[in-house]
């Protein structure tokens, strides 16, 4: 089959396989052929990507593109149901491809063991009809959004945090895009990732399944697609809310006078490349901190993690002041000592030190490099890593 050729019929086996679709008047043979002829790119094969890929494969999407650079880690298995215990250590796209083939051998898989970047995004996305977002960071979301606007393709958005999720379809015809909703990302450190903030394992299942449903509707052209609407979900209260979204005429990428007409540097846009004039933060390694403690030097250790995280493990003599309170409670820091701030992986501690310095704190203060995770790796092997 050539690049632009379309399948015009289903095999006997396919007719059996998709019979529950074929008897739906909204799908039928014609709809199932649309699904078979569709090409969907799923960016990320983790929590959101897992249910999206499983359901799209089962539904008979003809070509599934997968892009992920990560390998399966034990901590993924609580929610990334496409990967299994046996897959730990394998590239995620390999285990995802195996699962797709197990579910539906008719699906053609195009996999990229890579990170989506400004350099490769257009080249990769251009051959697909729809892009589904299963990423875990702001820079890739803005990159997907801008690429989809430039290439005129719909983008099925999903995002999760702790017990909350958001879903929408962006850039569907004249519908709003992600930048119409959020023109700019938050400053680094203000919104923690799932690795820092946690996520209930079922949540990506719920949000990802909604994304899969919207993708199928886009392919079939049926129902009311979740465009111009943001669906928010609160798993604790078991509440969905639907909020109205409008295209922003001033939107820098899809507005009337766009200023973004090609892909930009999204790490810079998201503040991940800090300009030199920004407040600098000094770091201390776990080994150097251990030496200071052994030498009985005067050190005050401040752990900014949440109380339930401290229960998993902490450095002896730690004083706990949660991230959100430290700037207000800075008088509790002992500026006659070296103060060391500890978080899970060393990012929030650096951010809070920046905030402290900006608010006028002048004492000697360090961020524990790599956070409590590096302490567990290098110093206290009995401490659990999480």
């Amino acid at each position: 089959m050539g690049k632009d050729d379309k399948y015009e019929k289903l095999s006997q086996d396919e007719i059996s396989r998709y019979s529950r679709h074929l008897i739906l008047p909204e799908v039928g043979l014609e709809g199932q052929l649309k699904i078979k002829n569709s090409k969907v790119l799923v960016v990320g094969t983790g929590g959101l990507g897992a249910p999206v890929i499983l359901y799209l494969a089962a539904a008979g999407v003809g070509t599934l593109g997968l892009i992920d650079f990560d390998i399966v880690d034990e901590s993924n298995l609580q929610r990334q149901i496409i990967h299994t215990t046996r897959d730990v250590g394998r590239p995620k796209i390999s285990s995802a491809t195996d699962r797709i083939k197990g579910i539906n051998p008719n699906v053609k898989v195009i996999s990229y063991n890579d990170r989506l970047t400004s350099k490769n995004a257009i080249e990769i996305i251009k051959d697909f009809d729809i892009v589904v977002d299963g990423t875990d960071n702001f820079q890739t979301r803005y990159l997907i959004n801008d690429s989809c606007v430039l290439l005129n393709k719909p983008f099925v958005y999903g995002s999760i945090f702790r017990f909350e999720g958001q879903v929408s379809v962006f850039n569907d015809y004249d519908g709003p895009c992600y930048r119409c909703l959020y023109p700019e990302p938050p400053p680094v450190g203000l919104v923690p990732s799932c690795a820092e903030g946690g996520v209930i394992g079922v949540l990506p299942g719920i949000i990802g399944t909604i994304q899969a449903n919207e993708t199928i509707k886009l392919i079939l052209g049926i129902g009311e697609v979740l465009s111009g609407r943001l669906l928010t979900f609160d798993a604790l209260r078991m509440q969905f809310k639907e909020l109205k979204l409008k295209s922003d005429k001033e939107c820098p990428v899809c507005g009337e006078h766009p200023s973004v007409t090609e892909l930009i540097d999204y790490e810079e846009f998201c503040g991940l490349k800090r300009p030199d004039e920004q407040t600098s933060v000094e770091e201390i390694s776990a080994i150097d901190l251990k030496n200071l403690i052994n030498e009985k030097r005067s050190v005050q250790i401040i752990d900014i993690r949440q109380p339930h995280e401290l229960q998993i493990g902490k450095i002896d003599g730690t004083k706990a002041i949660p991230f959100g309170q430290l700037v207000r409670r800075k008088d509790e820091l002992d500026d006659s000592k070296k103060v060391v701030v500890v978080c899970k992986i060393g990012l929030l501690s650096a951010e809070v030190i920046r905030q402290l310095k900006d608010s006028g704190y002048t004492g000697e203060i360090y961020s524990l490099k790599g956070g409590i995770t590096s302490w567990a790796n290098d110093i206290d092997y009995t401490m659990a890593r999480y």
Partner: protein
Amino acid sequence: MATVYIPTALRLFTDGTSEVVLVGENIGEIVTELVTKYGDLKTHLFSNEGKLRSFVNIYLNEEDVRHLDGLNTKVSEGDKVLLVPSIAGGI
């Protein structure tokens, strides 16, 4: 007077509170009340210049206040005010 709903991402700064009833004539007054009550929230909602940060959207019932009268949008008894920050998780 309106009920303000605090999303999970911002509950770190409200001692875990998920909703709070606040008095105010408009969105600006309600939000000012909110950050007065929960001081830690202030830097997350407002920039150093006192501008509302663009990664948090404020909804009055179902409508984004940016498409109404912004912080001057009038609030009536029984209205729901939602803070909807951008979140980034997915894997």
